[in-house]
């Protein structure tokens, strides 16, 4: 394996990590407030297509990025309406959001398949640092979304753990009646968390369509939204661990298309002779294995999941 290939692998690791981290961070916010949203895949698809179309129209990747976030928030809003305000089953509503979101994205984007926007996100060479051997390319010559994701991760950690709003959000995820009794609006907190989470997922989708795989094709999210959902469990609902998990999954996602070109032998098998379709199962198998290991570790301890996760709240029925 050449040096350039190795650096390329880690550059891609950071980018894939950013992709799943952004989406998972949004899901983390919603889940900390007690709302499971299985619609991440659909919200990402909607973000990807709407970001891409705005990018085509305006030529501004940032306008596209924020438009995608707004669309993600809107799509998340549907989940908030149905599962938070009306109290319907969160699993059902989230799944419908994924199926409907994928369908709607396919429909909305049917005329822009194969087009290519003129301006995409460009790598941000940070003066002085980008030239450092190896590390420069991996850490200091990435698109701006990567650094934004780091900032957002810090911001979410700060808000959740160091502010009154964060305390209220975490409280509503542990026990809605208690939070209600204290005088916070359960509905506003939860609906807000779901919509912010949707904005993160939508933004992640546009990072996909405006940088990582410029363009729009049906099914381009390809299960990354689901990996983001799993990542929240891996991260034990904490932003810091989420970032670590994102790097691990980012590495796997980056490794998979590159294994083809690596002339190495693993367990007596020539890696570059394995079919790409088979290598494609790697991130998904890893997810299952990781989930099993985590549950094994927590088998004698209480789960770190928010206690009220998945439970709708109706004041009249407490």
């Amino acid at each position, binding site marked *: 394996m050449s040096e350039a290939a190795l650096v390329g692998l880690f550059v891609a690791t950071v980018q894939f990590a950013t992709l799943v981290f952004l989406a998972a961070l949004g899901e983390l916010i919603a889940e900390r407030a007690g709302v499971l949203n*299985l619609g991440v895949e659909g919200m990402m698809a909607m973000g990807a297509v709407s970001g891409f179309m705005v990018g085509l129209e305006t030529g501004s990747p940032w306008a596209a990025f924020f438009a995608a976030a707004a669309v993600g928030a809107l799509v998340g809003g*549907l989940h908030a*309406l*149905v599962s938070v305000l*009306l*109290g*319907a*089953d969160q*699993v*059902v*509503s989230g*799944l*419908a*959001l994924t*199926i*409907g*979101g*994928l*369908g*709607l994205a*396919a*429909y909305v984007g*049917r005329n822009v398949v194969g087009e290519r926007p003129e301006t995409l996100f460009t790598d941000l060479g940070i003066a002085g640092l980008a030239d450092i051997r190896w590390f420069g390319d991996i850490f200091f010559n990435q698109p701006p979304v990567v650094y934004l994701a780091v900032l957002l991760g810090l911001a979410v950690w700060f808000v959740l753990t160091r502010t009154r709003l964060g305390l209220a959000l975490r409280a509503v995820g542990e026990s809605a009646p208690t939070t*209600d009794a204290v005088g916070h609006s359960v509905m506003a907190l939860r609906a807000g968390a779901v919509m912010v989470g949707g904005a993160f997922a939508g933004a992640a989708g546009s990072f996909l369509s405006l940088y990582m795989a410029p363009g729009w094709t*049906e099914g381009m999210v*390809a*299960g990354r939204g*689901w990996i983001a*959902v*799993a990542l929240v*469990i891996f991260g034990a609902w904490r932003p810091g661990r989420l970032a670590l998990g994102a790097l691990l999954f980012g590495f796997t996602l980056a490794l998979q298309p590159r294994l083809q070109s690596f002339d190495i032998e693993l367990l007596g098998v020539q890696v570059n002779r394995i*079919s790409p*379709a*088979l290598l*494609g*199962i790697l991130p*998904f*198998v890893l*997810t*299952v294995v990781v*989930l*099993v290991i985590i*549950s*094994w570790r927590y*088998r004698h301890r209480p*789960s770190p999941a928010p206690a009220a996760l998945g439970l709708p709240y*109706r*004041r*009249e*029925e407490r």
Partner: protein
Amino acid sequence: MIRPVLVRRDKVVPATQAVAFVVGIAAALVLGLILLWTSGHNPAEVYERMFDAAFVGTDSLARTLERATPLALTGLAVAVAGSMGLWNIGAEGQMMAGATIAAGVAMTADGLPGPLLIAVMVVCGVAGGMVLMLGPALARSHLGVSEIITTLMLVYVAIRVVEWLETGPWKDPESFGFAVIEPVPEQASLPGLFGRANIGTLIALGLLLVFSLAVSRTAWGYELRLAGSSPNTARYAGISLRRKVLTALLLSGGIAGLAGAVQLTGSATRLESGLSNGYGFAGIIVAALALMRPSGVAAAAFVFGAVQVGGQSIQTLGVSSAISDILQAMILFGALMAAVFFNYRIRWSGPAGQASSDDDQAEAGDDTMALEGT
């Protein structure tokens, strides 16, 4: 500030879910109308074409049944797990696994007479679905790993494996370079009913009936539902939750595997990576609409089969078939919302959450009384 609060109705609307389903269909059609209108199509023409393609004439009905069959089977698969409060999101993958094993059997035992070969394929299909479910089921029953994500992840695994088989080991040498698997032997196709419908539809109906009775009328079914709704009671009654979780999930996987085998011997000609065609995912909506009841699964699967046939037919009008995915999700959203309003009514409540009508009156005057009702 006066806020709306949802209050459970004393008298529930009769046949709530059936009515909610109809409301869901209506809501989806209205939304579809707006979508079609704004993208420059003539909604009336599109809907007419969809209706004709799905219902008018025996050929159309046969097509609808052909599509409804895998939907009913995957819907049943999801519902069996769902009657215990478990979510099998991976019926799509188990369907693929079932079809793959069945196709493997057909390749190695292609000398067998038709009925026998089909029987073996179907049994092995069930086993294939169960095998893919085994990991998630054990992880759930013994470690409490959420079956939602594990079952879903294996969908991608199953589809990729079929892609691999297509391009590599099972590639048909007589396919002129195309990456396809050889067709299943001729004697291994299910007898037809009429049009494109085959007896797979009857298999699905029969299974729905069996499970409908098993879940609602047998001790086994009662224990299953009890274990789902009140695990502590079930444990106290001596029911092994682990075993119940395992059986429910494995059965669910097996039925989805059966759907794969039926699809392979029924309307498909060969194993291909598009064989599951979203049926497993749509089956989740079907089961959710049916509130996990097998009888409802039949009705929802029929409607969804029609929506999908209709969605295919409008491509000739230049309308994307993605419309049918949107309609399916919207039917569920509409039904979910309608069901809430059938079970609850809105009461306008005062600022501190005072729900008593006296306070409402004091805060907001007489307006609230009209909504009060009771």
